[in-house]
């Protein structure tokens, strides 16, 4: 356990919201991005749910079991999953609020296809893809966030890629 993590735990356990805020702040952007990527619709709701859950569960944070970032991301992903269950929206609906990138990867159509296809993935696959590719977490960290073995993450990512391939057509491998 690093000194930073020990300190983080003490801050997380702190009784004031200011302490808690200071503890969450470095990871706030990641939480926000994850929520934005995973949630169809009101990602801010999920984000605030996640923060509320983190506040309530802060005593459960154990730096031995993982970093503060992963712990917070796990809570965010969990809340996103719950939201998906609650609303049970059709995953085939493309997100309306996806911001078009400035220069397209190949062309705009490809990009939109990709994002639509990612949105069609299962919640678990989308979580893995988002954490690994969009947030840049290594597989070990993704496994920590998702609460599974690294091998499971790898197979989930593999499944997601093959589904994307199927979705996007034969121009992709």
């Amino acid at each position: 356990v690093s000194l930073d993590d020990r300190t983080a735990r003490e801050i997380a356990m702190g009784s004031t919201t200011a302490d808690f805020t200071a503890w969450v702040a470095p990871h706030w952007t990641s939480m926000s991005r994850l929520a934005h990527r995973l949630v169809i619709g009101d990602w801010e709701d999920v984000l605030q749910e996640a923060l509320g859950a983190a506040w309530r569960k802060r005593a459960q944070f154990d730096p031995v079991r993982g970093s503060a970032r992963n712990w917070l991301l796990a809570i965010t992903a969990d809340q996103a999953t719950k939201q998906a269950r609650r609303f049970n929206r059709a995953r085939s609906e493309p997100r309306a609020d996806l911001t078009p990138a400035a220069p397209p990867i190949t062309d705009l159509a490809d990009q939109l296809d990709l994002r639509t296809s990612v949105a069609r993935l299962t919640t678990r696959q989308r979580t893995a893809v988002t954490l690994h590719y969009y947030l840049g977490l290594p597989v070990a960290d993704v496994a920590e966030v998702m609460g599974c073995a690294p091998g499971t993450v790898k197979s989930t990512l593999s499944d997601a890629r093959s589904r994307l391939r199927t979705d996007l057509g034969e121009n992709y491998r």
Partner: protein
Amino acid sequence: MTDIETLLRADAERYTYPQPPPLQPAMIAVTAPHRHPSRWLATAATILIVAAVAAGPVLLHRAAKHANPAANTQQVPKSITVNGQPAPLLGELSWTYAITDPADPRTIYVYAASAGLGNCGPHSLRAFVTGTDDDAVSDLAGAGRTADDPRHPNRDRSRRYSNVATCRGEAVPPLGAEWLRGPCSAMDAASGRRARRERRLHRRDVYRSARWDPDAAELPVLPARIAGAGPAVSHHQRNHRYGLPEFAAGSLRHRGMVSRRSVNAAPDVFRCSPPDSRPTGDSREVGAIVLVSRSIRPAQR
């Protein structure tokens, strides 16, 4: 042929995220414009969102997002501060209903109905504003405000609201304090099977008799609570029956709305009221609240 992994990584680089909402702690103090708590009724919509502010740091952005300075100044609190800074005032939420307790002006109950906040009837019971003293349970029956009460400062709004509240397809009256607390008159009865049966039948009768009739001229009034009696319906039962979310806030625990455990789990969240919240002159401060809620949003989002 394009590699999917390459495509994903390239997309990740170009993906633009919105700015995360501000993360800052919030403590609120609300100053009422009038001494008499009935005037608070009209402030319910605003209070609701203030409650959201108190619920957690992130919620602050939501209040700002929906701020409507054009709201009728006659109907908003005199001032709302968050961490000592003026807080944005929300406009109106079309379907809100509140009852205040004349005997305890620190306590404000806000009930937000479905259409304004979601689509799930009493699930949308999102926020309560309450004072510090969670033993200050007093009889709210005297409030006597109904949607048809001409003195009801929020009359039209309440009427509108009352047309939309449903719970699992069943019409539900706008929740007054009595309704929220449930009938408790049988709780002092002797224990034992007979007493339990009586309580159960009594509850059933009360609830049946109180079932809301949208065409009725007046809203139902449930029997007031007997002083000192415990809640007739546990919060689990109540939540189950009315789909209430498991929210916790100060005096609500005392009223059986929430469990002691949930309050104790985060005491500083659930009781963050300033200790000095007694009425002073023409203004009074109402402590922050306490609900960590799902979504609080105006009807037209």
